[in-house]
């Protein structure tokens, strides 16, 4: 979720520290695995929010469209498809740029395979909210990946031009 091994290790340690510190607050109202996952996700979200310089709620860390509160509508064009450009590096670069709330739901659902009801419990939000965050996350990722693909195409073009001018 943080896209950085060293940071992931620090957060793993922090999550287990929190487990030891807060184990007495576990009252058995949910499955222990859910409680532990919520604790770990909170540790990660705190870190991501600190990094982005915001002390905000899950709702506020997303980026709704300014006017409608829905994702920006980039209908795209049939000639620009992502399917051939989706390598791990590109995806990770795009995921890194997502707001913390989007990122958490996207990673939990699409990467780790949790269901919306589980994510809602882990993140303390409604199922509808989890679905909506996931949709916005995917749409934002699509925009980011298109930007990455376009940037890569520009770089390739510049490289080809400088190579051909070098031959002249």
């Amino acid at each position, binding site marked *: 979720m943080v896209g950085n091994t060293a940071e992931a*290790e620090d957060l*793993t*340690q922090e999550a*287990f*520290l929190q487990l*030891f*510190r807060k184990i007495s607050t576990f009252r058995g109202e949910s499955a222990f695995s859910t409680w532990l996952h919520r604790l770990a996700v909170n540790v990660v979200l705190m870190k991501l929010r600190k990094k982005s310089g915001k002390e905000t709620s899950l709702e506020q860390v997303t980026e709704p469209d300014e006017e409608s509160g829905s994702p920006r*509508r*980039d*209908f*795209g*064009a*049939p000639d*620009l*498809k*992502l*399917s051939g450009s*989706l390598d*791990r590096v590109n*995806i*990770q670069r795009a995921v890194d740029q997502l707001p913390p709330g989007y990122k958490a739901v*996207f990673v939990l659902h*699409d*990467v*780790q*395979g949790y269901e919306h009801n589980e994510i809602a419990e882990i993140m303390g939000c409604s199922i509808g909210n989890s*679905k*909506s965050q996931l*949709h916005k996350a*995917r*749409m934002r*990722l*699509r925009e980011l*990946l298109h930007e990455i693909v376009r940037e890569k195409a520009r770089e390739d073009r510049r490289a080809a031009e400088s190579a051909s001018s070098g031959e002249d």
Partner: protein
Amino acid sequence: MSTMDCNAFWNQLEQWMEGERSSDARAHLRGCPNCRSALTDLDAIRQSASSMGDADVAPPDRIWISLRAQLEEEGLIHADRHGWADTVKGWFEEIFAVVPRPALAGAYLVALIAVGLALAAPSYRRSDGAQIPTRPLTAQLNTDEEHAISFVTDSDPAVAASLRKNLAIVDNYIALCEKSVQEEPENEIARDYLYGAYLQKADLLAQMTERGETR
């Protein structure tokens, strides 16, 4: 013929991705290459993301060592003998893992293990039943250790001090492990710790000797 335009389709896109697909949306999609392209992208993102989960890795040992140290510092857990030994063993493994010197360390190790066994029992019994006194071996090892220390005595004082300090730590660690083995000779974990401790000391002595020789 669909009555749905792109905006209306996008209003339903979230439901579409969740599997709720109206006939109007299907009809729109058949006639709209732009919306088909967007859906292809979203499907590709979803599929690529699911393969990212395959890269899960186990946290490295140093996390548990560091975690234990912090928990002990905060008083959330209390150090036990094996836990402490485990921590120190891991620490030494990390320190010395980068300096392989198998031949020299191997020679020291053989001597160290022999001495360690001698401490756990007064003498070796060979396969033919003969008893082999181990005191001369201990004496030999002490000589070797003095030899290794003398190599670094005249070298860089900071390096020499550091090596001596490490040697003292390893010796303390060995003493602790030997005590455990003497108390519980059948405990495999205790014997593993002792073996690891010998390994660290053998490596350290080899390191000291090599430093002296390359001066």
